[in-house]
């Protein structure tokens, strides 16, 4: 596992390694509303990239295009060797989604299943992992998100932060190459935000490729190798965290950052 060296920035200076995720000129409309107007994006393996920007700027839509929940009208999306924009069948998208984890703002745990069963169901039913193996892994994952004592609880009995950590464990149980985080702390009580961010921080440290749509600017600055600022369906600016946050070149980015700092 290339976990340790990927946390340093020097790895990213190798030009040969192709990006794990590549978006080229991606366009998408919902009816009359143009949500994405030509998005370009590269995410290297092992990187954490944060997408920031005002609401309705298309951040979540980008994530949903990457795992094939939404189909762009124009443009190319590559994840590893898969041309996502060209996938036409449900089977092909299922193969993609086995490699891409997704964590939702509203957790979306399965309420009829216990915590451990939530984590187990996809590896067992979809990947066909043997139950004992899957269960051992699930318990390791629960320990990783510090919820080993909640294995038999039901989602309704957990706090938002706990549910979100289960959702992260559920996504990791599929051994994804890439995890997409869609505003995963936005629905949480302030006191539980930290515990979820701590889990993501460790994940990034371990070299998991992560794309985060987030409003946690300080966290984004701390964990990301790159910050993407979107507005009105376009990527207005991208770059190293300290550049985007402290000396943004685009006036729109400057306005957004300035407004956040109050």
């Amino acid at each position, binding site marked *: 596992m290339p976990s340790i060296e990927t946390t340093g920035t020097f790895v990213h200076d190798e030009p040969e390694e192709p990006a794990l995720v590549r978006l080229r000129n991606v366009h998408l409309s919902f009816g009359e509303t143009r949500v994405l107007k030509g998005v370009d994006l590269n995410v290297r393996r092992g990187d954490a990239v944060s997408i920031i920007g005002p609401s309705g700027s298309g951040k979540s839509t980008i994530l949903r295009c990457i795992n094939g929940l939404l189909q762009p009208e124009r443009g190319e999306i590559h994840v590893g060797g898969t041309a996502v924009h060209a996938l036409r069948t449900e089977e092909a998208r*299922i193969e993609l989604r086995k490699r891409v984890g997704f964590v*939702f703002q509203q957790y*979306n745990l399965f309420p009829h299943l216990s915590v451990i069963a939530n984590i187990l169901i996809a590896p067992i039913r979809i990947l066909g992992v043997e139950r004992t193996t899957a269960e051992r892994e699930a318990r390791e994952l629960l320990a990783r998100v510090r919820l080993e004592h909640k294995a038999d609880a039901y989602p309704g009995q957990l706090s938002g932060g706990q549910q979100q950590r289960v959702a992260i464990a559920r996504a990791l149980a599929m051994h994804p190459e890439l995890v997409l985080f869609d505003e995963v702390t936005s629905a949480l009580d302030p006191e539980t935000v930290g515990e979820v961010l701590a889990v993501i921080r460790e994940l990034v440290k371990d070299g998991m490729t992560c794309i985060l749509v987030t409003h946690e600017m300080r966290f984004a600055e701390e964990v990301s190798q790159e910050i993407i600022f979107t507005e009105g369906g376009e990527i207005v600016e991208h770059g190293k965290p300290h550049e985007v946050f402290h000396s943004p070149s685009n006036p729109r980015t400057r306005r957004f950052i300035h407004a956040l700092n109050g």
Partner: protein
Amino acid sequence: MAIENNVLMLSIPVRTLKLDPLAAWAIALLVGWGGLWYSYTDSIVMLVAWLPHLAQGLKMNVVISVLAMGIGTALGVLVGGLELSHSRLTQLIARWYVQVFRNAPMLVLIFFTTYVFPFEIHLGSHYIPFPDWVKATVGLALPASAHIAEIFRGAVQSIPTPQWEASSSLAFSRWQTLRWIILPQCLKRALPPWMNLYAMISMSTTLASLVGVTELLESAKNASNTVNRTDFTILVYLAVLSFFFLYCYPITRLTRRLENRFAIH
């Protein structure tokens, strides 16, 4: 806020009313039979002699209700599934089916099936009898299926769409999502209304007596006509009510228990 309060206040008496008739029934039955024993001992002895005949009748009610619910469930899930289909035409047909059979009196449907279907079916040289009790079963299965279609459709639609999205993201196919995520959640939601319907259909099986099916009510009528005594007639119909209570009350209780249990998760 004010409206919510109103709803809350209204819903409390409705909930208590739901239980009260049952408790009242239980007490009435007990007190009634206890009191009757003192005044009508000989009639009760006679009633006991008729009990096997009445039990035979009740068996018919149980068979009709179980079959009607079985057929109704199979048909209802199918129709409910069609209501959820993406094709406008199938949707329309399924909706009309539901509307027609939900808005028809069950007695009329039983008369209808009794006179529409032949008493036997010719298959080559074979004659398959088609007795009245089967026709009555079909007559009850049709409205049951329409109600179950609505219960099933409502349950599937009540599962929030993010559950589908979350399942897709975990590489579930549409069918796997339905099988492992949606249906298990539906079952919990649909079981209490399904049991309610079961109790309702069970009680409606007495309608079959009107097309000549010898079920409990018809057996009671036979007993009453044979004995021809007012006090016995009263007793025998009380016995019919008691039988139905004993059949349907456990269903209602079980429904309430399931409702409570599923309310947790």
